[in-house]
Structure formats: C-alpha cells, structure tokens
C-alpha cells in the first residue's frame, strides 16, 4: 500500500468535518494533517508516496502555490482539490453546494488518480524526448561514423584489394545507411508526438514541390510519370510533417507502383476537410496486408517486421486532426489518401472549381520559383480519367463540387 498524506489547508469549523469525513471515506488509513496555510504543507520528515492538498476557499496566491509546486524531479508534487470557487483547470474544484462527504471523497480519489496519470504522462513524454534527442543523436553519430568510414575505405582501396573486400565494405555502407534511416524516422515520430506543433498556414504546393525535388532521382530512376492537379490549396498544418507525409506516400508509389510507375497526386474539398491522394497503378494489396497498412505507430511492436513509413504517416496525419487510408480503385489503381481539417470549405470548393484537370510543370519551373502555388513534377503528366473519378471511388459519399 502506498503511503498517502492529505493536507487540509485553511479549513473553517464548518468545512473541516466534511473534508475529514470525505478523506476517511476516500482513503481509509491515510495520514491527514490539518494546517493553516500552504507554507506548512509538506514540512514533515516522512516522505509520502502520494500527497493530496485540499484547500478551502483559498486566495489566488495559495491556490497557485499549491498547483504549481514541483518535486525534485520537476514533476507536479501533489494532487490539489479546491473547496470553493473555480481556480482553473489544474485543480479539481467543488463549489459549496456540492460539499457532501461521499461526493468529495470521489473527487479526492479522482484528483489523486489524475495526478498519478499526469506524472506518468510527463515522465513518458520525457522518455520520448530523451530517446528522440539524446539516444538517437548518439546512435546517429556512431552510425554516421561507420558510414563515412566505409566510404573512405572504399575510396582508398587499392585495385588488388577489391573484389570480396569491396563487396563487404559496400555491405557495411548499405547497412549503416539503413540503420540511419530507421533512426531518423523513429526519432522524427517521437519528437512529433512529444512536442506537438500548432498548425500554421502552409502552402501545399510548396510542400509537394520540395518533395518532388527531393525524390527527383528516384522518379527518374524508375522512369515514373507524376501527374499533378492544376493548383494546390493552402492548408493549416505543420510544414515539416506534411513534407514527411507526402515523401512517404510518393516514395511508396514509386517503389510499389509497378514498372515505370504512373502516379497521380490529387486533392479535393470535402464537407469539413481537404482530402489528398497519391494514386498509382501498382498491384492490389492483399486483405491481410491492407489491414495493417496504416497501423498506428504505437502498435507496431505487435506487427511482423515491415516498413514504418505508413505508420509514420498515420501518426503525423492524426496529430494534425486528419485521418488516412487506402482504397483499391476500379481494379487497376491504388489510392493512398489523407485528410486535413479545413474551415472555409466553401471558398476552397470555389477555388477548386476554377481549375480543371492537371497541369504539367517541370522541375525547372520549381527551381525558378515561377509556379508559385502551382503543382510541380519532374516528369510528364498522365492522361488518366477525370480527377473526380478516382477521388469519388475513394470516397463515394462525397461528390466534388
């Protein structure tokens, strides 16, 4: 049994018996100390496992003192319940009409439980930050050293040392590259989860353009064609996260889109959201694989080993208030899509209505900055069916205006 100590602070003759009765009901056997002010709280020599501070009609300063107190680990020191007027969201508050021992007892228990959960949550967030920043930095440094050393070894290798030696050094280089990529991806999702960003206005065309530039060598390598809509909307989101989402979806299409992949990037307005999609003509995905495609990152430990790219997409989309998924379209195409919440969908619908089909823009346009919000592609445009067709199949309930 964990040691619990309750402090009843500033109780009047009328509130004290009620609070005492509630304390006994909530935590039989807990130590209860009645004190006059916050300065007297926590002065005992015995360090309890849990502390609950109950303040009766406190002034703002006492309430703040109680709520803001931290322990030596920098975590909230105790649970706080205020009997009196509402003092903010960080403490349970009970107004006088609810001062009934059984109800107060429930509030005491709930406050202690919330306090424990808050401390645990803060501790786990700290773990995430530590893994994301410190451990991945240290791992990345060591792996980086192996990678660069392998490159140097290859460069200084004499012709008669090549053959199997070179193949082994190449193995080291490739393996360290893979490790570095895993470290990067995992640390990215950990950082995103531990330190959520507030959404900001983002020009989606700019994000897609940068991703296409980054994947230009891959696009050319597999002789892919990427078709784009004539324009892109501005969204509210996190630029860096959107970059990673598009990067993973496009990379996925280039990898699994079959020979000389034909890829279409699309968007449309829905009732209160914007939907974006990457459509390719790769083979259909089996039902068992489909079920685990966008498996949440926190459940990956239960899955057989597979890539983490789409789980990363799922987390980053969810953190921005959207959702993502996969649809097989008309037997020959696959659509990987994600949504983002949108406020002014009527305006976006009008904007989208003023464009039709896709527009081909070269990487030179992107590099020149001559295409502003417009789409960007390093390859020739497709001559596929209307944009609406594929999007409607992905979500038949939402016609495009």
């Amino acid at each position, binding site marked *: 049994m964990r040691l619990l100590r309750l402090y009843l602070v500033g109780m009047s003759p009328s509130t004290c018996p009620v609070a005492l009765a509630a304390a006994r009901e909530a935590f039989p056997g807990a130590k209860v100390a009645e004190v006059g002010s916050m300065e007297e709280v926590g002065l005992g020599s015995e360090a309890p496992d849990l502390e609950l501070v109950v303040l009766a009609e406190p002034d703002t300063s006492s309430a703040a003192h109680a709520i803001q107190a931290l322990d030596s680990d920098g975590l909230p020191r105790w649970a706080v319940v205020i009997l009196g007027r509402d003092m903010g969201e960080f403490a349970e508050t009970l107004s006088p009409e609810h001062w009934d021992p059984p109800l107060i007892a429930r509030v005491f228990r709930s406050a202690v439980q919330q306090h424990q959960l808050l401390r645990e949550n803060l501790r786990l967030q700290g773990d995430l930050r530590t893994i994301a920043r410190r451990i991945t930095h240290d791992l*990345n*440094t060591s792996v*980086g*050293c192996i990678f660069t050393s392998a490159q*140097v070894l290859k*460069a200084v290798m004499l012709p008669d040392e090549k053959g199997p030696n070179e193949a082994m050094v190449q193995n080291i280089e490739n393996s*360290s*590259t893979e490790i570095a990529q895993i470290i*990067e991806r995992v640390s990215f999702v950990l950082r995103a989860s531990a330190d959520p960003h507030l959404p900001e206005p983002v020009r989606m065309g700019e994000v897609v353009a940068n991703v296409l530039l980054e994947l230009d060598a891959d696009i050319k390598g597999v002789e892919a064609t990427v078709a784009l809509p004539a324009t892109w909307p501005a969204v509210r989101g996190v630029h860096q996260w959107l970059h990673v989402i598009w990067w993973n979806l496009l990379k996925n299409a280039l990898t699994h889109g079959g020979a000389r992949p034909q890829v279409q990037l699309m968007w449309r307005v829905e009732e209160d959201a914007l939907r974006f999609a990457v459509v390719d003509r790769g083979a259909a995905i089996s039902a068992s694989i489909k079920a685990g495609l966008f498996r949440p990152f926190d459940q990956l430990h239960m899955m057989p080993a597979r890539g983490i790219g789409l789980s990363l997409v799922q987390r980053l989309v969810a953190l921005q208030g959207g959702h993502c998924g996969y649809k097989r379209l008309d037997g020959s195409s696959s659509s990987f899509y994600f949504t983002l919440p949108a406020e002014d969908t009527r305006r976006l619908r009008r904007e989208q209505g003023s464009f039709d089909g896709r527009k081909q823009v070269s990487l030179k346009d992107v590099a020149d900055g001559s295409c502003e919000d417009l789409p960007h592609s390093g390859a020739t445009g497709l001559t596929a069916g209307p944009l609406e067709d594929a999007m409607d199949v992905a979500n038949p309930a939402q016609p495009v205006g």
Partner: protein
Amino acid sequence: MNILIVEDHPRIARVTEVALDLLGCRAFTTHNTADAAKLFFTEKLGAVFLDVNLKGESGLEFLSQLTAWDSRIPVIIFTAKFKGEFAEEAQRRGAFGCLAKPFSLDDLRRQLTQIELYHGQRGGTLITQEGRDNS
C-alpha cells in the same frame, strides 16, 4: 585548403580528417572551442567545420563568435538530419552551409566545391591570419 574541424566525437573527427585529406585538404582537428579559437588565430584557414552539439559547449554560440571574429570565413556546421531548427538558427548566425550526418564523400566534396567557389569569387585568396588582422 586548410580546414579546421571542431568536433568532440573523436572518431567522427578522425574520419572527417581522413576524408578531407583524401579530397586534397589539410585538416586541423580540435575537440573544444578553446583549442579551436587558438588555431583560428594561428593558421591560414579556408573553412571551419563545426559540430553544433559540442560536449558542454554550444557550437551555435561558437559559430557566432567565429563570424564576429571574421565574417569572411565559411563555417560549415555538422547537423543531424531532420534538425531543421539547428540549420535555420545556424543560418541566422552566419553559417555558410550544413553537413548532415551521416555524410558521404560526395556530400563533403560538394561542400568543398562551394567553399572553393566562394573563395574564387573573393579573388582566390584564402583567409589568413594577416587578413584577419587587417580586417
């Protein structure tokens, strides 16, 4: 070209030194900013390669110090990938470029080409102790 490497991780420092040597440069390696400051004022340098995560020291603050001493010296910072915040802050403080870890010989070669171009545009002269004294 003489290059000053400021990197507290000895193996990274060593492999960077060997790689730079392979690419025709002469590297001076230090593991802290105090030694780096001494070399900065005693050697003729073409560039500085600086780690932003130095043990117990701020590489970014040292970057500001370097550019305050001599704004003409190209400083390349080592960063981890996806550390956009460091790259932006380093740029604000006058960094010439970023080299994301893990870096390849080609990455290093590209940075050196940029540095050579920069010096070429400045008249082909490397930044020397005398130059710093006169600036």
